[in-house]
């Protein structure tokens, strides 16, 4: 049962490979939005139309394979329990929007979880392809192939002038959102990132925290993505994003170097305090968890900590989310109970490393 796998493994199989620059770039993603040409978009479509699309996906793609993406599994949102949907959201396999509003939504997910297709979200089709580390071009090439494969059986809504037609005017044209997830602890610690963000925005790119409110980025994890989808080719957009990410990687490395040169002991102290908190707390909130995990991951990357695996940040960030915790406990938990279970899971997980 693939659904069981999606639920039980915190880290998607594709995350276990280390990609280029994976000390800073956690993952690269390409998302393409597509629609059927003759069916109204999900916000306005009749239930009957949406049902037809779900049936079509189930018939044509369930248990199919394409290239490296084996054993595609189609699930209907209506067949999932709330906690199951939440876990898929926490693993970034579906959007909160699909989980909440998509009673006629579905998802097609490959065994490796590298590809997931959201059906009847804001658009009929939104699929995303993940690669570990910094591999935007590779992700784009694979996304194009996957797109061609889908298009063999689907008449897309496409217009010569406007490109791929989407429900929201902000996605029309390429329908593409290219993004990278970056861990930028040194740029955040030295507050350089807040000065860089406006400049990045000016290039038509958006920076946002993955976990956290507003511009705050819990765990110092930032997502950088393109905003413009019309009038520029996918390759140009990806190239712009790539060059900005390159700069950020370079700056983050410099900032880490500088931190070590100027305040090695303070940095080491901070990292080991966080390590201690994770190893010994009995109650821990998600915010503190994210901060400590970011410190520990930095400690691993700069060599202070050598006996902990690098994937700990990704893994524990997902496992300690509310949905996962409750899936693990097999029941609904109050926030206080979550904080207790979170602390104990982290302690157990760190013991495994020894």
């Amino acid at each position, binding site marked *: 049962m693939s659904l069981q796998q999606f639920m039980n493994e915190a880290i998607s199989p594709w995350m276990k490979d280390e990609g280029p620059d994976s000390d800073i770039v956690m993952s690269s993603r390409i998302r393409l939005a597509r*629609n059927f*040409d*003759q*069916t*109204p*978009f999900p*916000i*306005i479509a009749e239930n009957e139309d949406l049902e037809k699309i779900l049936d079509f996906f189930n018939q044509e793609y369930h248990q199919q394979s394409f290239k490296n993406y084996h054993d595609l599994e189609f699930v209907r949102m209506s067949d999932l329990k709330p906690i199951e949907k*939440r876990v898929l*959201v*926490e693993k970034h396999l579906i*959007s*909160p*929007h699909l989980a*909440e*509003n998509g009673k006629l939504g579905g998802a097609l997910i490959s065994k490796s979880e590298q590809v997931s297709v959201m059906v009847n979200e*804001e658009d009929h089709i939104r699929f995303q392809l993940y690669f570990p580390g910094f591999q935007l071009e590779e992700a784009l090439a694979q996304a*194009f192939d996957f797109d*061609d494969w889908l*298009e*063999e059986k689907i*008449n897309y*809504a*496409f*217009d*010569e*002038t*406007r*490109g*791929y*037609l*989407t*429900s*929201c*005017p902000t996605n*029309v*044209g*390429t329908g*593409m959102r290219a993004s990278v997830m970056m861990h930028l602890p040194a740029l955040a610690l030295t507050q350089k990132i807040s000065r860089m963000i406006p400049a990045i925005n000016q290039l038509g790119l958006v920076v*946002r925290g993955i*976990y*956290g*409110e*507003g*511009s705050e980025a819990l765990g110092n994890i930032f997502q950088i993505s393109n905003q*413009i*989808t*019309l*009038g*520029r*080719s*996918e390759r*140009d957009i990806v190239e712009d994003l790539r060059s900005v990410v390159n700069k950020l990687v370079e700056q983050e490395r410099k900032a880490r170097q500088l931190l070590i040169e100027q305040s090695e002991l303070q940095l080491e102290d901070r990292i080991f305090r966080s390590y201690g908190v994770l190893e010994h707390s009995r109650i821990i*909130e*998600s915010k503190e968890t*994210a901060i400590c995990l970011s410190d520990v991951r930095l400690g691993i990357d700069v060599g202070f900590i050598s006996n902990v695996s690098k994937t700990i940040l990704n893994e524990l960030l997902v496992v*300690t*989310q*509310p*949905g996962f915790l409750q899936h693990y406990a097999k029941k609904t938990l109050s926030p206080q109970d979550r904080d207790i279970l979170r602390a104990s899971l982290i302690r157990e997980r760190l013991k495994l490393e020894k």
Partner: protein
Amino acid sequence: MECQECHERPATLHFTKVVNGSKTEIHVCEHCAKEKGYVSYGEEAYSLHDLLSGLFNFDTSLNEQKSKNLSDEQGLKCPKCGMTYKEFTQVGKFGCASCYHTFSDRLNPIFRRVHSGNIVHEGKIPKRIGSNIYQKKLLNGYKEKLQQLIQSEEFEQAAQVRDQIKEMEKEKGTNHDGEGEV
């Protein structure tokens, strides 16, 4: 999509909020956004409605004649899905692919604002259904080239390009019956 707070007005503000580490998407109308204090997440919030209504003001003040026709144009209705232009500006979402054609005349200013001045797609063309668009683009390229060659009096090359164009047009005539109106 309706506002999740009042369930009355359409949701025009869409953003992500994180409570205790769990992410939720918020879809509210402007009224409720202010009332419930969502607006403090101003940076994350993105209101297409603002953009569109701002656009109207801009248009009407700039173009007196247009403003007379404004009510007519807002009455535009997509024959396929039934969405009116007014609804589109309120919800900020198209109802179907045909909306793009129905509202076509009003879309350029919107796209310009959302996409840094761009109004025409550059990039991927669907491999299967777009193959004749691809051919058409190629053909147009040849036609331009032909004009250039004639102007620069390179007649020998021009003749070659003309033959290529003839060849392509003949192929198109046999492959797609009636489909390829250029």
